[in-house]
């Protein structure tokens, strides 16, 4: 990956050809979610254990509901499904519109640094690792 030679170049292109084409099909070409913004670290949890009977959902929607039986961030969902974050945001919008997932946005990103107790909790949590 560090090389600038032809073979490295070739590899890079091959690596990425798949992921760039597939998302288009997954979202039907949609670039934006119908609802929500979905930060990389917004936390998502499914509201149902099974959505097999819901019509209009694709396999990726069902996969997200399955994954989010535990609480995962948008970034983790994207990594586990090997889909770009933008694609996952669109899929999550569909699920949120049907109330199939619950989303917790990270603390207000414009509010500056968080309260002291957040820092203290993180420091103590790290010490205890």
């Amino acid at each position, binding site marked *: 990956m560090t090389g600038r030679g032809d073979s490295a170049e070739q590899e890079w292109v091959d690596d990425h050809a798949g992921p*760039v084409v597939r998302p288009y099909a997954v979202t039907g070409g949609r670039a934006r979610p119908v609802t929500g913004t979905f930060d990389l670290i917004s*936390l998502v949890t499914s*509201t149902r*254990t099974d959505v097999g009977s819901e019509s209009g959902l694709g396999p990726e929607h069902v996969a997200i509901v399955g994954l989010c*039986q535990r609480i995962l961030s948008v970034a983790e969902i994207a990594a586990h499904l090997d889909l770009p974050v933008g694609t996952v945001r669109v899929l999550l919008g569909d699920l949120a519109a049907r109330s199939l997932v619950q989303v917790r946005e990270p603390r207000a990103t414009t509010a500056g*640094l968080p309260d002291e107790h957040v820092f203290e909790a993180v420091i103590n949590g*790290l*010490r205890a690792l």
Partner: protein
Amino acid sequence: MDYGRSERPTGAAPLPTAIKVLIAGGFGVGKTTMVGAVSETRPLRTEEVLTETGIGIDDLSGIEEKSTTTVAMDFGRITISDDLVLYLFGTPGQDRFWFVWDELALGALGAVVLADTRRLADCFPSIDYFEGRGTPFVVAVNCFEGARQFRLDEVQAALDLDPGVPVVLCDARKRESAKEVLITLLEHAMKLREARRRAAED
């Protein structure tokens, strides 16, 4: 470990809050290694596909018309408690992708800038970026073998850092070392927050 319960009555326990810290620095300086050293799982990788031009990507030469660029980010997770989850994001290459940096830096508690004394200048862009944004950061000198030993105050001077910015040694491969760096960062960020709060009151 109380995920995975089969029934989750809606509106029962509130979802935890997520927070993040960035791990930045030059190419190959040990960012992914540090993320992996303290995270609860091996580093995960996520990709953003950028399809528009003119969003801060400086060099698109050789790529045709409607180009897509893929930016990969490594990240890891540390579950602090039932209501707090910390994510560590390794930043994608400096000098490019500032658009993605802006997204990552938004709301971040702070950043670790990893430095390699064999090529200190590689971390200048990261330092400039966080200074410019007012994001709290510390510099962690990653101790590669064969690197001449610098005193930390020499590094501080060479990087032209504010005297208040902590500079520490680390081994990004070691969990304890990476933990210490993060704790130093959070203590520094907490102090800065307090200082800014006071300044705002005056």
